[in-house]
């Protein structure tokens, strides 16, 4: 890759501002509340943008671009079905309890509502997960920098990976150490606008080149440009999942489980300056979120729509590890209909430099490079620096989100609860800073673990999905059924995770070998795709948790009503909205968001 001084200057300006914000905010970090909760003083729109930006990690930008290239516009279900309804629900119904209970974290809410053991399960599993997620973001970024040859000629090849890891760690550590959650939130806002600024012109140029949305529709198979077509059956759509599994598994269990209970995102709303603002945060976030498919999924579709003439140009793109695609992949019309490849490069072996082949001898395509390749295809020097900065910003926002969630849960829910209960506020502020350093060091260790034991990382992510899948049932019952008990919640949570494990051990996706993909106990059912199996694992985990929690709760003694005021829906006074005009009410915003969602689904049905 040939970067010039202007590209490097743009990147440098971004990093100066990122660290500058940390320095500017340092003087405001006087108490642990300032550091961990941003002083509960941030306006709703800032928290709203941070709410989605914290989720804009590697998986989001690179992964969604890759899925767009692989599955088409149906990938937008991960936003329209898999995020927006849950964001509306958390804003309208759950935020009054998170914010109003004055809990400092999601695990702390579980302690207030249930008991210590339920909090402990959530706090420990969450702390471990955040460290690994941050490490995976770091690893993915270093790998991308290495693949694109960003430092080619500047740093010797064997050191590129290490330098990338250390640089990103220092920058993220710097601004969180100095400015705590406020710094992370402010930088997430910066990153949000940068990502929009970097990707919007890419989509504009790409669409202009391929003849707009109409051109994409003419080039790609119908299933790629319609999100709901063929959803009646798993075999008739690119995702390989039917509408019920999609709506229940993704749209309900997984989506509500993430957006309504994951402290990484909820922490951003809890930093808002009032309960009304906190309720508006996820609703404000939902508006840009529903249009994000046009920034991250559409580039994937454009990448596979580009015709061979443009491919030749890409073949000359000066990148270190990117091999030009096999011309037959898209040059031949029929091949394109089967699986359009466009400019997606073939995956190469980093050691031999040769193309990776599957068991049928066909080349394996590296869909993860859909967006980076598109950047190189359309962006001249100058704006290329902006595009690459946007890409790096997305990785860093994912990393920082995890690190701030980790330092809070570690300090409040683990250190203060089990190690040092009677420390001064100054001591906990110090511990928060130390936890930031510790979290970054553990993330680096996780990133290196990923390089050596790729399967171990896959296995860990799988275990985390088992822990997360049943979680929403615990919160749903806890907030909306006053009879739910701590014993019920604890045993239900463990049973749900057990059910997820069992389901994974007894089922397998089509074409996979028993092992990490499933079927390691016995095979009683085969799913049409990996995705269908994931969704159904979540459905089983949720249902098991729900039933077990209800049964155990009915068998055990519940807490008196007066102890649950502010924690349970039926016992908590409804938020006062009389002073707000109709358009200021969160419910109005929620209706508007849902109406927009319906329109988008209809347009791209």
């Amino acid at each position, binding site marked *: 890759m040939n970067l010039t001084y202007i590209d490097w200057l743009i990147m440098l300006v971004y990093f100066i501002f990122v660290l500058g*914000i940390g320095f*500017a905010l340092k003087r405001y970090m006087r108490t642990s509340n300032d550091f961990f909760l941003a002083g509960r003083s941030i306006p709703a729109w800032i928290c709203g943008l941070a709410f989605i930006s914290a989720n804009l990690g590697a998986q989001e930008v690179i992964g969604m671009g890759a899925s767009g290239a692989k599955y088409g516009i149906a990938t937008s279900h991960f936003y329209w079905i898999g995020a927006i309804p849950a964001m509306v629900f958390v804003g309208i119904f759950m935020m009054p309890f998170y914010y109003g209970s*004055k809990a400092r974290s999601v695990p702390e809410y579980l302690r207030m509502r249930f008991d210590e053991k339920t909090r402990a399960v959530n706090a420990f599993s969450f702390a471990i997960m955040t460290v690994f997620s941050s490490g995976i973001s770091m690893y993915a970024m270093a790998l991308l920098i290495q693949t694109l040859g960003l430092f080619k000629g500047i740093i010797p090849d064997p050191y590129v990976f290490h330098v990338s890891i250390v640089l990103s760690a220092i920058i993220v550590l710097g601004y969180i150490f100095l400015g705590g959650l406020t710094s992370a939130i402010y930088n997430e806002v910066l990153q949000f606008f940068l990502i929009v*600024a970097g990707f919007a012109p890419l989509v504009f140029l790409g669409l202009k080149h391929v003849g707009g949305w109409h051109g994409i529709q003419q080039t790609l198979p119908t299933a790629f440009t319609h999100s709901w077509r063929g959803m009646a059956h798993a075999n008739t759509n690119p995702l390989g999942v039917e509408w019920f599994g999609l709506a229940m598994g993704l749209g309900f269990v997984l989506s509500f489980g993430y957006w309504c209970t994951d402290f990484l995102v909820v922490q951003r709303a809890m930093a808002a300056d009032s309960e009304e603002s906190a309720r508006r945060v996820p609703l404000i976030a939902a508006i840009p979120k529903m249009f994000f498919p046009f920034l991250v999924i559409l580039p994937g579709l454009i990448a596979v729509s580009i015709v061979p003439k443009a491919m030749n140009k890409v073949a000359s793109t000066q990148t270190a590890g990117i091999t030009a695609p096999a011309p037959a992949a898209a040059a031949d019309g029929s091949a394109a209909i089967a699986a359009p490849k466009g400019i997606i490069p073939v995956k190469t072996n980093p050691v031999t430099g040769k193309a990776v082949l599957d068991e049928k001898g066909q080349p394996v395509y590296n869909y993860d490079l859909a967006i980076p390749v598109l950047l190189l295809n359309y962006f*001249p020097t*100058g704006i290329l620096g902006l595009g690459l900065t946007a890409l790096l910003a997305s990785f860093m926002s994912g990393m920082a989100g995890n690190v701030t969630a980790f330092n809070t849960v570690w300090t409040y829910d683990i250190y203060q609860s089990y190690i040092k209960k009677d420390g001064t506020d100054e001591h906990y502020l110090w511990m928060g800073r130390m936890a930031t350093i510790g979290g970054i060091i553990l993330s680096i260790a996780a990133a290196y673990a990923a390089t050596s034991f790729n399967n171990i990382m896959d296995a860990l992510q799988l275990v985390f999905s088992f822990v997360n899948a049943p979680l929403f049932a615990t919160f749903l019952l806890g907030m909306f059924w006053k009879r739910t008990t701590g014993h019920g919640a604890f045993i239900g949570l463990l049973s749900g995770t057990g059910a997820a494990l069992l389901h994974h051990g007894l089922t397998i996706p089509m074409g996979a070998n028993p092992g990490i993909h499933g079927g390691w106990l016995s095979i009683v059912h085969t799913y049409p795709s990996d995705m269908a199996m994931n969704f159904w694992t979540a459905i089983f985990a949720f249902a098991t948790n729900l039933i077990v929690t209800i049964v155990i709760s009915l068998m055990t003694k519940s807490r008196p009503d007066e102890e649950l005021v502010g924690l349970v829906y039926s016992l908590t006074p409804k938020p006062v909205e009389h002073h707000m005009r109709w358009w200021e009410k969160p419910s109005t915003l929620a209706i508007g968001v849902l109406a927009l969602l319906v329109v988008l689904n209809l347009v791209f049905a």
Partner: protein
Amino acid sequence: MGLDIRIPLGLMFLVTGGMMAIYGFFTRGSGIYDRSLGIDINLIWGLVMFVFGLVMFMLGRRTKWQDDPVHPRPWEERPRGH
């Protein structure tokens, strides 16, 4: 919080957009724009970013954040008599 985010946000877009626009102006008509379908994307998008940065900076400056008191925090009790 005392610092209005629109100020650093605006400044960053002003600087980045400004640099891109100047670079785009001096490289107009260059072969580097073959990739971007003949459009001087640096000049155009640099100007868009510059204007966005200016608007954000002006909006941020309207609020005098320097005068914003660090005290009291929402959870801190206000002293009697205030």
